[in-house]
């Protein structure tokens, strides 16, 4: 077990290297770039000052040297400073991460919770009206463009009914609220984004759970459990449910990529101060150190999440635990 975890942790290194090389190549090899876009627009900038700026940021050196330099600093957790405001990348990321995690983890929990209930109940009442309506509802969630739904819900709940705040993580008067009110304030801000995120993901997970459950119910050990004279409750909620939920752990691990840093459309609509918007702004402004920082952090967290999912799977499934 220990060896396995160490091996997996070591495997993260080449993957991270690959990711940073790909990102680095994309931002540096494509036409355009920091100096061209941000400076050449300005007529006053002389070619001379561009060159000076380039050498200041190390952009005049060969690409592989630039990458190695970046890597050298990365080993010491130094992601450099933002081109835009000169602040350390790590600090910028650290500011944004909590909001992203709060939104995505709440959405993920809600999404899996509801999806599992829908999946299991649909499997038990297969082909019933309930099953069919759940299919339609979850598929509506899956197919609806989330930004469009966000716009409409903001219009209804935020503007027309004035029930929920429509942007940001906190209200303007947040600092003046009592701690209880602060929690309620954040929760209110969470409602719409969490609902919309979770709604979109329901179909995939609930279908997955449903198919698994149906397959498990057709297994011979379920038939054997009936033959033992066990009650239906024990058979469904102990034997069938546990077996069909095991693979969901893997699914949880697989749904991590994109959660951190990939939800910028969403964060833009809700003016959510998260990593996604940081990524979006840095990409638009060719802020290389921030882009690299965001991608590396997102990838690292995703890989860690995957590893955790695999390890917990191994702990729950005796077929892997005792080999």
């Amino acid at each position: 077990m220990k060896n396995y975890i160490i091996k997996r942790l070591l495997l993260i290194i080449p993957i991270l290297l690959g990711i940073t090389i790909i990102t680095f190549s994309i931002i540096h090899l494509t036409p355009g770039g920091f100096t061209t876009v941000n400076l050449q627009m300005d007529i006053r900038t002389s070619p001379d000052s561009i060159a000076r700026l380039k050498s200041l940021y190390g952009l005049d050196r060969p690409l592989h040297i630039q990458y190695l330099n970046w890597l050298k600093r990365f080993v010491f957790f130094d992601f450099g400073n933002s081109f835009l405001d000169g602040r350390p990348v790590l600090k910028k990321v650290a500011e944004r991460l909590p909001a992203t995690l709060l939104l995505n983890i709440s959405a993920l929990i809600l999404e899996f919770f509801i999806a599992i209930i829908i999946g299991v109940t649909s499997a038990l009442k297969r082909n019933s009206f309930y099953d069919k309506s759940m299919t339609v509802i979850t598929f509506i969630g899956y197919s609806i463009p989330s930004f469009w739904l966000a716009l409409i819900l903001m219009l209804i709940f935020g503007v027309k009914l004035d029930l929920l705040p429509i942007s940001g993580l906190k209200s303007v008067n947040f600092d003046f609220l009592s701690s209880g009110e602060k929690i309620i304030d954040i929760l209110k801000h969470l409602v719409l984004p969490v609902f919309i995120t979770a709604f979109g993901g329901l179909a995939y997970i609930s279908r997955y759970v449903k198919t698994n459950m149906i397959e498990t119910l057709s297994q011979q050990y379920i038939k054997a459990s009936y033959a033992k004279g066990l009650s239906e409750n024990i058979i469904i909620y102990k034997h069938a449910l546990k077996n069909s939920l095991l693979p969901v752990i893997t699914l949880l691990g697989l749904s991590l990529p994109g959660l951190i840093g990939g939800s910028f459309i969403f964060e833009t609509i809700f003016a959510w101060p998260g990593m996604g918007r940081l990524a979006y702004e840095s990409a638009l402004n060719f802020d290389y150190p921030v882009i690299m920082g965001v991608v590396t952090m997102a990838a690292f967290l995703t890989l860690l999440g995957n590893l955790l999912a695999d390890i917990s799977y191994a702990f729950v499934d005796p077929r892997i635990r005792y080999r």
Partner: protein
Amino acid sequence: MKKILEINNLKKNFRTERIFFGSNKIIKAVDDVFFSINSGEICALVGESGSGKTTIARCIAGLETFDSGSILFKGTPLIFKTKEERRKIQYIFQDTYNSLNPRMRIDDTISEPIKYHFEIKGQKLNEEVNKLLKKVGLNESFRKKFPHELSGGQRQRIVIARALSLKPELIIADEPVSNLDVSIQAQILQLFLELNIKDKITFLFITHDLRIVYNLADYVIVMKDGKIVEQGQTQKIYSKPQSDYTQNLLYSIPASPFKN
């Protein structure tokens, strides 16, 4: 008698795939195996699951590589470089459902190897396919069908026809009847006997069923855990089994006459 196949020092190890933790073990699937088959004989390879019989068969047919040793076909090592060499050894599988490409009609399944190896076309090809179908006890109406429209026994007949289309000298039959009903088993086994007698095809017949072996095979090889336990003429093995394992196998036949 001439030897059609000689197997010397054959060894093949498998490494168990390590999914999570623990080190991978090495399993000796085939461990230093020697035997030979005479031309025109039916040789039976007998053993329980995991004894390595299928691995040997797949090595002979070139579907699997081996670690060391040699396999000689009519005195020369098999490398399957030429079309000619390829067609001479054919294989019949246990799983009749997966033996046929589900997207190909029976017609295409049987004529494809003929077209590829003998470059026959048109009317001649047509006749050849009909002849093969007739040989395995089916009629022309099967040509237009897909595998899922046939019963297990019929599918196995098609597999045999496909193998015969290449005019092989050696057919390896890997548990060819164990997925079939008893009343169909006998039909297929009788077909094998006829092919052996009339067409002089040599068979390497893999099975765990000692009742079948007794009536089918000239020569028997008994395997356990990758090793050959005993080999010899069928009559001899059945009347005077040398090893305890063979004896145990004979006792274990349901309603075995050897028990008393």
